[in-house]
């Protein structure tokens, strides 16, 4: 029989204190943020409507909606996605399926980690120096998307690698044993079995690309550009464009006398897009985990 001594009780009490202190620390990080998000929504409520999304900013960006920046962000995200996805997925295939343990593989992994750690403003300088000036593309959606693609590549590589690594080795061995080559195995077995994991990575890349400001500031995003409302093809590849993140920065710091609801509305739309996209990725991941057959 165990009998509680004075010491055990003190230990128990002690443990409880620690638990509550740690819980408090966790809540102190999370709760204020949830409050802030609700505050942003509360401030933005009067302006949020379908019209806000579908009308251009007017009167020096002091009125109207966010159509031009919203469409610009969609363009930047989609084109950066088109550039980053093949490179990122293939890079992950190389690292997970082909690369052996060696100093060279280590250098590649190190480069991926470092690419993820480069400050966004340095990516902006790189985009300006390499794409806008050196390649002569000029400030354009294409140059900005390329900069975003390189910036978000590590996210894609990391999550695709994880998805590929989750496919059991036995699947590959079975395929090799019936005479398939390495690439055939990857195409017919590995990729189909990890497609939802790869999709999660692509979704995360979208959310990251949609929120970035610094890398597009000097490579293709402009303060103001009016486009045809409702025209989904209003931007060309070599045009400059507005972007939601840049628009939020502009109307909250660069333009005087903007009605308060306008930047709040823009912030909530941007935050909403990013969080929704992320939530989608999380739901997808949970689904995959629960449905896993092996």
């Amino acid at each position: 029989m165990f009998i509680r001594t004075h010491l055990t009780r003190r230990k128990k009490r002690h443990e409880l204190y620690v638990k509550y202190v740690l819980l408090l620390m966790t809540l102190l990080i999370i709760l204020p943020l949830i409050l802030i998000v609700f505050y942003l929504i509360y401030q933005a409520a009067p302006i949020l409507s379908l019209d806000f999304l579908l009308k251009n900013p007017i009167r020096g960006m002091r009125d109207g909606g966010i159509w031009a920046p919203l469409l610009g962000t969609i363009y930047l995200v989609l084109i950066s996605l088109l550039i980053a996805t093949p490179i990122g997925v293939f890079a992950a295939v190389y690292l997970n399926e082909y690369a052996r343990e060696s100093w060279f593989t280590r250098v590649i992994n190190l480069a991926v980690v470092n690419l993820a750690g480069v400050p966004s403003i340095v990516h902006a300088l790189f985009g300006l120096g390499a794409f806008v000036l050196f390649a002569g593309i000029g400030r354009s959606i294409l140059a900005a998307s390329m900069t975003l693609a390189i910036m978000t590549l590590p996210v894609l590589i990391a999550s695709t690698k994880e998805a590929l690594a989750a496919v059991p080795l036995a699947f590959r061995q079975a395929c090799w044993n019936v005479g398939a080559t390495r690439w055939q195995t990857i195409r017919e077995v590995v990729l189909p079995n990890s497609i939802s994991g790869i999709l999660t990575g692509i979704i995360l890349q979208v959310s990251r690309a949609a929120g970035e400001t610094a890398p597009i500031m000097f490579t293709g995003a402009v303060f103001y550009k009016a486009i045809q409302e409702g025209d989904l093809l209003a931007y060309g590849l070599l045009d400059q464009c507005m972007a939601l993140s840049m628009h939020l920065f502009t109307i909250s710091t660069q333009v005087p006398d903007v009605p308060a609801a306008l930047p709040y509305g823009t912030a909530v739309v941007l935050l909403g897009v990013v969080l929704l996209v992320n939530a989608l990725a999380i739901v997808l991941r949970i689904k995959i985990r629960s449905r896993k057959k092996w």
Partner: protein
Amino acid sequence: MKMRGMFHSRELLKEWLIEKLIWICGISAIFFVFGIFFFVFREGADYLLRGFHIREFFTSIEWYPTSRTQVRYGALALITGTFSVTLLAMFIAVPFGLGTAIFISEFCSPRAREALKIIIELLAAIPSVVWGFIGLTVMNSLIIHLFNAPLGLNVLNGGIILALMSVPIIVSIGEDALKAVPESYREAATALGCTRWQMTFRVLLPAARNGLLAAVLLGVGRAAGETMAVLMATGHSIRIPGGVLEPVRTLTATIAAELGEAPVHSDHYQVLFIIGILLFSITFIVNLTADLVVRGIRKK
């Protein structure tokens, strides 16, 4: 037979091409990292090799890039700005981040763990410009009210915002490090009659030391390299701050604020790229150290 052979060699050629393509994509990350260094260096190189006063850059606080009579590129105040905001951010984020990591990994139920991890992940997804906007509006008025400060855009504001931004990375890497401690360590500690806290403090933290250090380093890298949030939340004043309630300007914010106005290839423009080289070097070293520290554990 012959047809089949041709088909076969065509397949082989295709496979060879695809494997080469995969290889090129695989090593592309190396190209990009070198490319970033090369192109940022290339834009700043001319001035760096021609008339750059490296001493003035690191020791003078006189930053007058657009002055007509006496142009000065002393970045000491900017470096101090980055340093002070990052330091304050880490002062907040390290205890809170590691505390949260310990709570998630050791003290809460599996369900609560999943929920908290999802919230932390969503926290990490908030765009930096939204953080900056929060600093500009909510934090700004809070600081003015709470501290009776004349203005709320200062080191404190930027530090808190950066702390909140780097907490998720510290939590997730820190939690990974704690999870990597072998279960047998926990069992041994429990068998000896340790409480959970004694186990965490005496066994897990020392065992996960390297991983936790890497978590903090990555947090530092994130905070020092952040641009939009500090651009919007720290005010615009190029001087060495005397306290947390004074405004500053960081290295990153300077590039973002001035690059648009600097004529292409002017001295000012090139100095901004030199700041970029400095930032790249700082984060490169921080990331490299973090990686080496993490590798250290895996070897063991």
